């Protein structure tokens, strides 16, 4: 067991670049919408800056908070998240037909964000202790799946399909990384797929979204509208873009351009060069993160890092896939970029955890 060292600077730098880049783009993308809605172009960016500051605090706090102590907090944290998820169904704030936010005074948080971290910490903790059992289906894998089932069920009841998908995918990735048998996943994927199909069937809007993704132009005036507007933005950017701040699609063509569709605005303003830069930054982040996981001093730190990095990776991949019309539309934020309030704090907190793990790294010592 080695002592604490400096954290991985490459990872830290990537995080800071992404955060700054994200803030600039939130400002650019939100200015028009904020102006129309609140008559104040700075309305969104002001709030996002506050969240970013809080996020930095969270990161630095977690970076100096010994991750091993999270091991002991895993169960209480998981329970807390289950309580919050249950609470949001009862007393949550309803926005656009979904009850996803809990208000604490002036702050609102999404319990699903808490749940994402909680399940990563809990799975990492438990998997690092009972390494071999995971290969057994009933005694090893099943308990995880039951806990995952409870949380996923609570999230989907909000309803929050994309959140559910992320939680399931990240959990499965963790189980996979910890050594679960691939054969088991194949068996499990059958009911999972059935469940997804069912979820689509019970909510007709999901079906239309799927269909509209296949041919957005056919549904131009309704389901396809958003995705076409997104493609217009992406296409308008060309190789070098229209220039920072010069997006035209943000003028209400893309509703709330600073949220889920911010990547389209990046494409429009900065062109393929800008878009590729963003993707490459994420690849660097993932690569540095995975490197930290590989060099972690223990299995817990390794799985913890893998989980958090996967959380980022899954959201980035789904987000970009959605805005480029590569999969059906679902409301997935782009980490660091989408103006999502509390989620930035959780992401930054997660980054802090990884930085902390990197301080105990085996080979990252100069």
């Amino acid at each position, binding site marked *: 067991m080695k002592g604490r060292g400096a954290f991985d600077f490459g990872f830290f730098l990537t995080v800071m670049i992404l955060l700054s880049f994200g803030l600039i783009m939130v400002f650019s993308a939100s200015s028009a919408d904020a102006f129309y809605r609140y008559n104040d172009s700075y309305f969104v960016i002001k709030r996002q800056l506050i969240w970013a500051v809080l996020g930095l605090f969270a990161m630095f706090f977690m970076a100096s908070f010994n991750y091993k102590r999270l091991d002991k907090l895993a169960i209480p944290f998981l329970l807390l998240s289950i309580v919050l998820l249950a609470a949001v169904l009862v007393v949550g704030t309803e926005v656009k037909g979904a009850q996803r936010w809990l208000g604490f005074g002036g702050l609102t948080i999404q319990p699903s964000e808490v749940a994402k971290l909680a399940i990563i910490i809990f799975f990492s903790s438990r998997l690092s202790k009972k390494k071999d059992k995971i290969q057994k289906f009933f005694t090893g894998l099943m308990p995880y799946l039951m806990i995952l089932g409870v949380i996923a069920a609570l999230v989907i009841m909000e309803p929050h399909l994309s959140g559910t998908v992320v939680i399931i995918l990240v959990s499965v990735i963790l189980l996979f990384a910890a050594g679960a048998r691939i054969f088991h996943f194949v068996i499990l994927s059958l009911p999972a797929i059935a469940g997804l199909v069912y979820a689509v069937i019970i909510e007709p809007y999901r079906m239309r979204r799927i269909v509209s993704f296949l041919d957005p132009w056919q549904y131009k005036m309704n389901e396809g509208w958003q995705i076409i507007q997104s493609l*217009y933005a992406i*296409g308008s950017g060309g190789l070098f873009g229209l220039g920072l701040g010069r997006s035209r699609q943000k003028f209400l063509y893309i509703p709330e351009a600073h949220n889920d569709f911010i990547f389209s605005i990046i494409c429009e303003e900065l062109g393929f060069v800008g878009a590729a830069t963003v993707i490459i930054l994420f690849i660097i982040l993932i690569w540095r993160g995975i490197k930290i996981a590989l060099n972690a001093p223990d*299995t817990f730190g390794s799985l913890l890092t893998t989980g958090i990095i996967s959380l980022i990776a899954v959201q980035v991949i789904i987000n970009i896939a959605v805005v480029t019309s590569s999969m059906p539309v679902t409301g997935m934020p782009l980490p660091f970029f989408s103006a999502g309030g509390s989620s930035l704090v959780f992401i930054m907190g997660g980054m802090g955890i990884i930085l902390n793990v990197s301080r105990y790294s085996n080979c990252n010592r100069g």
Partner: protein
Amino acid sequence: MAAPNLMIKKRVLLLLVFFTLAAIGLMIRTGWWQIYEGERLQKEAIQQQTRDRIINSKRGTIFDRNGKPLAVSASVETVSAIPNEIRKAGNAEEVAAKLSQILNMDYEEIYQKITKNSAYEIVKRKIEKKEADEIRKLKFKGIHLDEDSKRYYPYGNFASHVIGATGFDNQGLFGIEAKYDKYLKGLPGRIVSAKDAIGTDMPYKYEKYINPEDGVNVVLTIDEVIQHFVEKHLETAAIENKVQNGAAAIVMDPKTGDILAMAVKPDFDLNNAFQIQNEETRKELEKLTGKEFTDRYGIELGKMWRNKAVVDSYEPGSTFKIITSAIALEENVVKPNDMFNDIGYVTVGGRRIKCWRSYNPHGIQTFIQGVQNSCNPVFIEVALRMGAEVFYRYVKAFGFMEKTGIDFDGETAGIFHKLKAFNELELATASFGQGFQVTPLQMVTAVSAVANGGKLLKPRLVKQFLDKDGNVIKNFEPEIVRQVISPETSATLRGILETVVSEGTGKNAYIKGYRVAGKTGTSEKLPRGNGKYIASFIGFAPADDPRVVVLVILDEPKGDVYYGGLIAAPVVGKILDDTLRYLEVEPKFTEEELATMEVNVPELRNMDVKQAQKALKDVNLKYKIEGTGNTIIDQTPKPTAKLQENSVVILYTEGAGPVSNVTVPDVLKRSVLDANKILTDSGLNIKIIGSGTAMKQEPAAGTIVSPGTVVEVEFRHTDVD
């Protein structure tokens, strides 16, 4: 705790590979949209992001040949609203109230428009500059003013069918306005500006201004003055003879093919081209609704706008004998003094074809007399001498089987027999203008060729294009289509046709001082026997050097008479008289004409008697003095009235007792000599119009007038066809 085992490391590395591949895949996908599909997407995006506002170019002016404007465009403006901007400003009520006041429009109507759920609404088109300035001063958000133009036709009901009118968007709908729309309209400019998804302008500047290019000015061959003469005389004739199917007249310069005037009656005001003029039709239309209305309205508008002179064809009747004569003389099958014997009919192909005066056959006559008498058998005879093929060839050469190529939309080519079916019987009837149809324009063009030495010209309505500073952009030169007959034949025929007016059936086209040549025509419309006729006359003058060719057609006259020589010839005469004087063609009076010269009555009031006597003597007028004073108080007729020489002017001096008024006697059906005597004996003066038998007098018989009053009497020859 132990470090992660190898399997975990392998699986984590696998994740890195998977995430990286997915990210690269998405990068490619993004690039595909941006670079491969970029152009298409960008085009569509710009289409939704920008608003094109058209700035109309100024439409060119249409001038007459002397530079008088016949159709002009004035700058006006169009008020439009962007409802979203008004909604944001939140002052729709105020805007509507102010606009309704300035534009004199209904408040509700404006309010509806400016609050409508649309991106762009036109509030009112074509408002005057003054109103526009008032609106501009208010600086309302969301109310825009765009330049536009409005067409004005200074002369209203004037050459309406030729000039044509424009529609709502200043596009030419018919006539020259339509034919040269491409040139007149110029190139519209555009303002391209960026808009957001709800239709308001984007806050930052993105505007492109493309200047409009003004349209070219078109100079017509029409002469405004001559057109006015034609309009006036044709209108009078159309009303007097109660024409049921319209009237048309064309004046052409036979040397160039220029159309100097072209009129169709009934006409309409170009400034109000969308209102049906016929009151009965208008009432019928008011009863209709929906599609029935629009269909019928469209048909009626089309009828009203139809330029009969170019579009409609008719059976030319005896006027066509000019062409038959031309062919016969050119082909040498007849000499002017060849003898013919008319027994009232000819038998061709077993069928008996009668002369129009078969009740009193013309008997033995020369070819010239045959033309003067318009004797059908003479023309049948010469046509049979030349044969169908020759006749057909010339009819074609004179341009009757094709469009003249005038620069006017909708021209037709008439209808003639097929050569294969053109047998002797058809030839016989064709020789006097029956059994086929020609357009008035074809007729004028062909007769112009006869008049100008044998050259068939392409008739034209447009002389040149000018730019806005008056520089010539393009000149349209006269075009000779072909030489049809020799100059000698042309000269011979001009002489013969002159005698038609001086001695034959065309006497009513006679005017003093000018040698008029021409030919009458009366044809019965199909089916024969329905009592519907077309009366026409085509003439030119001066006969030795023709300056103008004039055709007048009266379609279905419903008056007492329908003969072209009676009702169309005088109209041609009047048009020629006015036109030749206007063109300053030197009149040459015969002795006989000099004897009946007219003089202007001088101003005599306030003169003393001696002065007055001298003034009257100077102009060859006689006088009669009433009263015993020394100063002239009053006179009849009043100054500038025209009197024939040796007429009597009544002079009133102080102490003149009450003058006994005179009852105008009836002189109708009298000869010129008789009428003159009757009126003079009653102490009245006469103004003689035309020659022959009195057909009309003004004032009418029985009217009480003061002595010396001028009675206008129109004489006509009735021995005409």
